[in-house]
């Protein structure tokens, strides 16, 4: 995919998520009181409303909950096809990430595949993509 990825605007809430890849870590906001996770990130726990929240590194593994193979070049120069997936993260109940599955052919991807995060850096943003665990 040679087309630049649409770039998130960094702020206090999302910075850890989008830059954690520099340390090879996937960060999800976790509550220091109830231990549950909030994603998309917010300065408050959506489960117990505690403000004692902070970005916490998670395992970075998960399973493909569902996916779609996209064939439409939505942006100029976008290389198709590619896989968009909804990944259910290990150890982070209730949190899903929309991502791309990379490093394999599009027709090799299936429901329930085990995946692991891999980061793609572009101008200081570390996009968490996933590859199948063989």
């Amino acid at each position, binding site marked *: *995919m040679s*087309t*630049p*990825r*649409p*770039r*998130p*605007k960094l702020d206090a809430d*999302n910075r850890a998520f989008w830059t954690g890849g520099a340390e090879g870590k996937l960060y999800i906001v976790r509550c220091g009181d109830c231990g549950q996770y909030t*994603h*998309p990130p917010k300065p408050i726990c959506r489960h117990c409303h505690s403000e004692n929240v902070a970005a916490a590194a998670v395992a970075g593994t998960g399973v493909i*909950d*569902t*996916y*779609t*193979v*996209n*064939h*439409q070049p*939505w*942006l100029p120069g*976008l290389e198709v096809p*590619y896989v*968009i*997936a*909804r990944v259910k993260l290990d150890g982070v109940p*209730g*949190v*899903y*990430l*929309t*991502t*791309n599955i990379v490093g394999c052919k599009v027709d090799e991807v299936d*429901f329930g595949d085990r995946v692991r995060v891999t980061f793609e850096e572009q101008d200081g*943003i570390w*996009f968490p*993509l996933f590859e199948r665990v063989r």
Partner: protein
Amino acid sequence: MAGREAYITGIGQSEVGIRLTRSPLLLTVDAVREALAEAGLTIEQIDGVATYPGKMASFLGFSPVSADELIEALRIRSKWHMGGAELPAQLAAVASAAMTVKAGLARHIICFRTVYEAAALARPEEFPPLNRQFVDGPSQWVAPFFAISAANWTAQYAMRHMKRYGMTREQLAQVALNAHRNAAINPKARAIVKEPLTLEKYLSARMITTPYCLYDCDRFTDCSTVIIVSAGDALDEVKCKPIRIAAMAGSVNRYSWDQVEWPASYETGEDLWRRTDYRPKDVDTIQFYDGFAFLPITWIEGLGFAPRGEGHRFIEGGHRIARDGELPMNTAGGQLGAGRLHGFGFAHEAVTQLRGKGGARQIPGDPRLAVATSGGGPMAAALLLARD
């Protein structure tokens, strides 16, 4: 307590086309004129305006006209107006107008949805496309992965339905096939659909995002649709047959397309039946949001016309949802057949059928009860419409 009821009175629609040159404000005025004429109302009797999603400066083709502009242009003396995207889907503008007349704040409210997405593509200097270089808000969690369109977001729920419940492409195809059959005899859809659709053509069409092919995604269209909502104690001013808003429902609990376990159509569907004594078996026609082909299946299940996981079997073969079937669906052609009118077309067609004004596409019998819906991702709205 007719005074506490809300009714749809006038309905109107501008020309429906691709790359129209008439200004979006004037298209809105065209639809207003038709709706006023049908209701037998004058603009002086209008005292409210509601729209979805409000004028969007960053994405003018998507929503080029504000409630303020219409008030200004037509010299409306408004007592209550509203326009915004932070509502549970498109028809929530109509539901909000209904609440307003029930509360006694206005008597006749013009609700409109004007779309100009095809024209905008042709005239980008006037109607610039959405800047996708930088993203924030909810889109930052999907667009960076080139999950640009709601087609990508809803397709994943459709894929899950195939895996979990065995939905086939042939079953999914019935939504588009039914839409095209109905659009073919809708004079307003002539600019949108030129050729009949067959299952063979559907199955060989190019893929957009699995399982959606070209025919499973609606097409950018230019149009304005108007629904006038009137208070029950103002019906003596109206000449057309009023259609009562018998129940309404809407929901959003995660405003994230990828964090919801089920599209909001399920929760909204259950809520709708809690607010009325009518039951699904009483419904004569369904007008279900079909911006993407899977969404009507979620509404069929969410509103209890079929159990969860069996909506695709309900529409199998297409007979049940055909114009002469037991539950005619999207009789004007929906958005897949008649263009992306963005939600308001479903209420417009429900009222048309309940008044027996469908012409060649009028469903048989004496339809008295219809459901019109919009949305189906993380947000959804449903209206139950009755001719008493």
